[in-house]
């Protein structure tokens, strides 16, 4: 093996993490998640249990109060939560949003924020990128941040900003140089780490959006919001590059949540298909039930390999854009197919909320759309991996 070879581990890695996180999830079973879902409530008790035990600080280096674990370990944490029937969506961003500050922030910013993020004292789990008029066309975003002495004045609107009401800090991508004045459309964007506690009702308004799943997503309005110039992360105008490398981590982690979802569906469906007897035997002996489950299992196993590959490359410091994107695509589809097979296996009972199947099925559907839609992943692979003409 040469020095560019990356090692991929197979099997049940991080068993101690799986055990300990699984133990927490045992105390937050279906009834808890159903209650949160019905009330569109933030699962505070669950998030606090994870925070108190240090799980959300897994990726923060030890020097800043975290555990300094590899991305793969964080993936195992999230997979375990999703496989248990719960959802990490309310807090997963606390794990990785800080990555942009860690990699591109000043030492002063890191000292100021990372230890408090590690302890959970400060929540940084909102990322203002998407806008109503630009969607995934990030370079076309319109939110402006204009320098004014020791401050920037921000005006504009973000949408689908998850957890903004449950976050103390927010990472914000805004245009600092008008598009007409830059050569590349992705230039002139800057990243800010802003303190929502000071800005709420003081230039920033956050409105929740009622959605099909309990995701605590919002739209965020900026009107002459005044933020200190010291909130700028890295250099002005280079923000687009800064957020890109965080996206590979995000996609790899989301992929692992999908793997957890798929495992949940397959486990529930398999045991139900063995127990449910009708027409004189267990329904699982019917190939119409059995084969979709078997196929979804095969798909899940294959997708998981890609997720592990993406994490291994990321942890080795190798480029992993294609793998992170493919992992997110394949894992989200595997989870969706497992969810569909599970819905069909449970028949009418799949629709009864107490079985948790319909809730997980709704939640699993999100990852075909967010944080990046399947089409955009395909466009990336087409253009950047296969060298096809740019489609988007």
């Amino acid at each position, binding site marked *: 093996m040469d020095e560019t070879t990356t090692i991929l581990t197979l099997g049940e890695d991080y068993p101690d*993490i799986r*055990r*300990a996180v699984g*133990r*927490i999830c*045992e105390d937050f079973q279906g009834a808890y998640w159903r209650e949160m879902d019905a009330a569109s409530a933030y699962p505070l008790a669950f998030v606090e249990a994870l925070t*108190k*035990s*240090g799980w959300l600080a897994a990726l923060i280096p030890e020097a800043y109060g975290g*555990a300094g674990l590899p991305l793969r370990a964080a993936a195992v944490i999230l997979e375990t939560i999703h496989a248990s029937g719960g959802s990490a969506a309310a807090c997963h961003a606390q794990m990785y949003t800080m990555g942009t500050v860690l990699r591109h922030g000043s030492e002063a910013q890191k000292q100021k924020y990372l230890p408090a993020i590690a302890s959970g004292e400060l929540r940084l789990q909102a990322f203002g990128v998407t806008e109503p008029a630009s969607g995934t066309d990030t370079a076309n975003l319109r939110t402006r941040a204009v320098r004014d002495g020791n401050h920037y004045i921000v005006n504009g609107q973000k949408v689908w900003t998850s957890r903004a009401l449950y976050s103390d800090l927010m990472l914000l991508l805004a245009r600092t140089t008008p598009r007409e004045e830059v050569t590349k459309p992705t230039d002139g964007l800057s990243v800010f780490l802003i303190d929502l506690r000071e800005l709420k009702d003081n230039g920033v308004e956050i409105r929740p959006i009622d959605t099909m799943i309990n995701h605590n997503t919002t739209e965020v309005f900026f009107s002459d919001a005044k933020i200190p110039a010291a909130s700028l992360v890295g250099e002005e105008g280079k923000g687009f590059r800064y957020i890109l490398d965080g996206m590979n981590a995000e996609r790899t982690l989301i992929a692992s949540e999908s793997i957890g979802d798929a495992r949940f569906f397959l486990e529930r469906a398999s045991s139900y298909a063995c127990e449910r007897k009708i027409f004189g035997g267990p329904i699982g002996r019917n190939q119409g039930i059995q084969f979709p489950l078997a196929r979804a299992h095969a798909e899940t196993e294959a997708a998981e390999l890609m997720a592990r590959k993406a994490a291994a490359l990321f942890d080795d410091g190798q480029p992993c854009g294609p793998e992170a994107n493919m992992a997110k695509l394949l894992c989200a589809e595997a989870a969706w197919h497992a969810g569909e097979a599970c819905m069909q296996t449970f028949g009418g009972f799949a629709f009864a909320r107490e079985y948790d199947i319909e809730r997980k099925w709704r939640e699993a559907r999100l990852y075909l759309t967010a944080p990046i839609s399947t089409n955009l992943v395909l466009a990336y692979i087409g253009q950047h991996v296969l060298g096809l003409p740019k489609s988007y």
Partner: protein
Amino acid sequence: MKVLVPVKRVIDANIKVRVKSDQSGVELNNVKMAMNPFCEIAVEEAIRLKEAGAAEEIVLVTAGIRQSQETLRSGLAMGADRGILIETDEALEPLAVAKLLKAVVEREEPGLVLLGKQAIDGDNNQTGQMLAGLLNWSIGSFVSKLETGDGSISVVREVDGGLEKVRLKSPAIVTVDLRLNEPRYASLPNIMKAKKKPIDMFTPEDLGVGVAPRVTVLKVVEPPARDAGVKVSSAAELVEKLRQEAKVI
């Protein structure tokens, strides 16, 4: 004071136990295992004693196959200081475990041995009592409250019909019940620290204890399936059924 906490690896409480097809026992292959919940309560209590300054060191001990190390690591991640594994592939009976523990107690000389009142696999509820008998130590079983004093340990026992307060002369054995405490979650920093905590390995032979089974299991079977219930339309009908069909009144 040193506290010794024996812990057991059992099938996870959330797993549906299945009988092996040859009826020789229950299926353990590819089954999720965990620390016996009552042992978890014992570990938690030991940690609370240490946090309160009443204990200096917490030593975990388990006997069984090599994978039982995972159970020790779980307890070390909660906050225990070191572990002892007595490695054997033999299916251990309570008396064998009590004899092994006696040998460990004689080496470690703890002031208190905290055990779960029973393990959720065999539900034997024997090891703590047998250990007390072998050592000729005082024992408080089914304990839901524990306080350490000077040379003694006061406990509240959950007995039939109420609570019993007992003062035990140290050193003592205490077996813990469900309501003693709620075990903490192992935190990520403590899991990292637990990796570096020592686990000493012994075999039953090292301790001079024979563990050959003395009981023969003839057959393990599933409990009989319950018949479906019936709905009655009136209290009179219920009384009638209790009298005529169930013959209980």
